């Protein structure tokens, strides 16, 4: 074995994302000096991206308990039981750093990675969702980045034939330097076909299948664990290039094998490549793996063992196969014209042993490699000063617009507007199961041969999070639950992606701690187990961090896909009810952002217990078909939600609010405040009694506020806009902004 190297220089260590302290920690544990390959492997697995060394202790607050949970965090994806032996497997993951540098490939390989996590469990992916954040679309560079990320997400999903059924996209100057690209994948598998990423059975062969191994993506995991800097463009080689066609074949081959007893374990080759996949599989099985790198098919000549072990070439999977059954497994890959090679075997010492040229070139105990990292506890501190003054008035200056002007501007804001510019570039229908298309509160994918379906949503609340990260995380969970309730769906479980800045900044660490606490709290109160997740830190550019952005993906179940409400108001004369929480608030609101004001003031109030009851009431009214439409009030408040119901149903409405505007505010707060927990329901006049009955039974405020009809959207005494103007504003929001030149 290659001898250990002399103490590496700080610069060499930085390249591996290791600190000197970590280096000495490694030497101490090993009882010797690691060689360069071993150090590279340790650096990759001890990186934040792979080890979660900063966030792990916080994440233990999240509960994954629930009768429906089959597999919680720790595997490739979480799994919940849908009944009758059908399981749903899902996870969300970030690909922020690569997308900032190479938006098409960064976004595409993000989708490719999350798809592999799901089919590695034996599940057929049936839906993708994305959560995206960019800077303002008034900036040509941001338009370019946005257009290219959408192209990348679409490219991968469209080509592989998995529908992208939903998502959310926000534009805010705070993401000027770092865009966020989070992708969620949902798959289905029957219980006997569920696979685990585990190595078992000493002597069993280890196979590497799919793409050849190249020099692409080396140090991807470490690259994701440091801040971007002005020279980040030069890191483009750390971004992988996706081949969705190859992954399609790989997916079909793996799914074909999922039911076979010849397959012991399956794991995708993601961050930190072969090092991570082999180490994790072996660790889970309490065994070791010996790899012979000479058997690894290379894309390029002259690759060193270091490069082979740390390559993040996409579209590769690692399999452990029952001894003597390699040929039948290989036959499946052959049929799909995919390369498959036996590259190693399961051994009993709990080590990762790497051989090359007939020599052992690295040998690391798995306990040290996988769990020997130094947990980090960076200092945290609540930020000081007026920057986050929660008692400040949300609007410093008087609003220079009339209520009508503000209303139309909000409807035309890319954050509230029609999102078809995005999702018409995504195949959202392949599979013939998407019964509620993108653009609604949640998407619905039916389950074949059964009456029920899955309701899917992703949500985040970064501006509230900036004011109060604990509240922001709770608001994100509450919004997801509301979105599902609007389709009559019961939430089953949650996956989360925590997008934050550099945790070595005290403020960021505090945000992370608060957000995780808020997430844990909201999930507990709303009875939502957290079954999978991902953490993306170091989303900074030149010292500026993104706002804390916890994104949650929630899977729900609707009982009958034939009985779903339509997208907007259904018929003239229907009564409109405002159900749920009271009060509004412009702190962190979209109106505040449009006005160019600082993020100040109190974030929306949140009563999680009321959220739970209100969502139950709406779910019940939608399932009973009493509610002919349901929509929650989120960005842009009551007025924007009302206009959206009108535009979607091509019907006007007249609404009277009991509350009078305060003289100082002139109605802005009432109309556009983003108070939480509110829904607009429309019901046939005869359904009013039942609506009030269900709400009062659950102790949920419920007020009849108006009636559907006419060709304008009117809030009596305050503002009135023509329906056509509302529709036009919504349509031009993103499409209009994207009509400008890119770069």
């Amino acid at each position, binding site marked *: 074995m290659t001898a250990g190297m002399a103490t590496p220089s700080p610069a060499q260590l930085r390249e591996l994302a290791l600190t000197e302290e970590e280096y000495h920690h490694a030497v101490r544990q090993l009882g010797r000096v690691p060689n360069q390959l071993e150090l590279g492997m340790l650096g990759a697995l001890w990186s934040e991206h792979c080890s979660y060394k900063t966030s792990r202790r916080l994440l233990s607050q999240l509960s994954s308990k629930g009768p429906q949970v089959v597999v919680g965090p720790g595997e490739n994806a979480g799994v919940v039981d849908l009944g009758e032996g059908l399981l749903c497997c899902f996870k969300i993951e970030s690909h922020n750093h690569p997308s900032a540098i190479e938006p098409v490939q960064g976004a595409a390989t993000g989708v490719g990675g999350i798809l592999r996590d799901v089919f590695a469990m034996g599940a057929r992916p049936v839906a993708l969702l994305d959560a995206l954040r960019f800077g303002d679309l008034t900036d040509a560079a941001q338009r370019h980045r946005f257009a290219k990320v959408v*192209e990348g997400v*679409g*490219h991968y999903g*469209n*080509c*592989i*034939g998995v529908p992208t059924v939903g998502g959310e996209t926000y534009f805010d100057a705070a993401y000027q330097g770092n865009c966020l690209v989070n992708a969620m994948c949902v798959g289905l598998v029957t219980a006997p076909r569920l696979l685990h990423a585990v190595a078992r059975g000493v002597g069993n062969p280890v196979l590497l299948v799919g793409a050849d191994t190249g020099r692409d993506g080396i140090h991807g995991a470490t690259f994701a664990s440091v801040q971007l800097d002005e020279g980040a463009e030069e890191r483009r080689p750390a971004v992988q290039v996706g*081949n*969705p*066609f*190859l992954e*399609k*074949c790989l997916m079909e081959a793996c799914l074909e094998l999922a039911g076979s007893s010849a397959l012991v374990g399956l794991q995708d080759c993601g961050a930190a490549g072969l090092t991570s996949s082999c180490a994790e599989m072996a660790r889970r099985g309490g065994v070791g793996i010996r790899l012979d790198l000479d058997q690894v098919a290379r894309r390029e000549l002259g690759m060193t063992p270091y490069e082979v072990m740390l390559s993040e070439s996409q579209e590769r999977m690692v399999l452990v196969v029952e001894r003597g059954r390699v040929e039948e497994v290989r036959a499946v890959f052959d049929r*799909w*014209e995919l390369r498959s090679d036996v590259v190693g075997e399961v051994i009993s010492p709990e080590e990762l042993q790497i051989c090359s040229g007939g020599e052992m070139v690295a040998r690391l105990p798995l306990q040290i490699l996988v769990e020997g990292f130094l947990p980090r506890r960076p200092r945290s501190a609540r930020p000081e000063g007026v920057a986050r003054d929660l008692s400040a008035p949300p609007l410093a200056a008087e609003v220079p617009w009339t209520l009508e002007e503000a209303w139309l501007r909000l409807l035309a804001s890319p954050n509230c507007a029609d999102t*078809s510019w995005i*999702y*018409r*570039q*995504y*195949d*959202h*229908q*392949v*599979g*013939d199961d*998407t*019964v509620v298309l993108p653009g609604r509160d949640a998407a619905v994918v*039916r389950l074949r041969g059964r009456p029920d379906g899955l309701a899917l949503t992703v949500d985040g609340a970064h501006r509230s999070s900036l004011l109060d990260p604990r509240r922001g995380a709770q608001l994100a969970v509450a919004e997801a639950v509301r979105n599902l309730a609007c389709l009559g769906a019961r939430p089953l479980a949650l996956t989360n992606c925590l997008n934050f800045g550099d945790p070595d900044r005290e403020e960021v660490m505090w945000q992370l701690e608060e957000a995780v606490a808020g997430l844990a709290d909201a999930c507990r109160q709303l009875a939502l187990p957290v079954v999978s997740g991902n953490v993306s830190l170091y989303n900074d550019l030149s010292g500026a961090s993104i706002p804390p952005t916890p994104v949650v993906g929630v899977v729900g179940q609707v009982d009958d*896909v*034939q009985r779903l409400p339509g997208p907007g108001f259904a018929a003239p004369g229907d009564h409109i009810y405002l159900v749920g929480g009271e009060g509004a608030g412009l702190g962190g609101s979209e109106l505040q952002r449009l006005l160019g004001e600082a993020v100040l003031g109190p974030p929306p109030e949140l009563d999680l217990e009321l959220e739970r009851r209100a969502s139950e009431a709406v779910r019940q009214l939608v399932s009973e078909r009493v509610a002919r439409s349901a929509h929650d009030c989120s960005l842009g408040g009551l007025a924007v939600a009302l206009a959206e119901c009108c535009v979607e149903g091509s019907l006007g409405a007249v609404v009277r609010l009991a509350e009078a505007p305060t003289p100082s505010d002139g109605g802005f707060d009432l109309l556009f405040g983003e108070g939480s927990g509110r829904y607009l329901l429309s019901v046939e006049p005869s359904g009013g009694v039942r609506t009030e009955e269900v709400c009062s039974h659950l102790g949920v405020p419920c007020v009849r506020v108006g009636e559907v009809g006419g060709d304008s959207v009117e809030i009596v005494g305050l503002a009135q806009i023509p329906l056509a103007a509302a529709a036009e504003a919504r349509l031009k929001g993103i499409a209009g902004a994207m009509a400008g030149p890119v770069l």
Partner: protein
Amino acid sequence: MTWRCGIAVFPGTWSERDCAHWVELAGGEPVMLWHAERELKGADLVILPGGFAHGDYLRTGAIARFAPLMAAVREHALAGGPVLGICNGFQILCEAQLLPGALLRNSCLQFRCQTTHLRVEATRGPFLSGLESGRILTMPISHGEGRYYAPPEQLLELEAHGQVALRYCGPSGELGDEYNPNGSLQHIAGVMNREGNVLGMMPHPERACEPLLGSEDGLHLLRAALALVGAS
């Protein structure tokens, strides 16, 4: 007796399962045909489904047309057997020169997945003979390269021989650029060969086979074909 619908599967094909579902709803029996095999397994009718066969590398359909299965499809087509190419299948049929013309990158330079209206132009051949001319069908499209192109003289010929099968149109059948999602010449969404037994179309009839999916219009095409196969 039920009629066998062969569904071609190339590496990268993704609507074979949707097509099978559609065939079953229309009363046929789907049978998958693997690209590397040279036989149609007794299929009365062959469907080339959507997807990205061989990744659409080089050019859409350019590699798939050399598949051993395509030799059998060609034989079937030349003998007058019904063949339907959907989306990528249409692209493959053009590359295989079983249909005239070519499909180019959408004029908007973006992928498009949306609902379209189609006007039935030709009412002959196995898939359209049951429909009346001018009928409006609603079906989704999902493609990046669906802009139909043929040289001017070939276009004239197509029109003269009634080979233009479907055109993109507005909800009441009106033609206009605003209803043409990809910049296809003459708003062409589907064409057939001169004999009418081979039809290629960019829209996805297999996604329009249930009210729950927004339209059932796709069933008309298959039911017409199955009735015809049944009568012969």
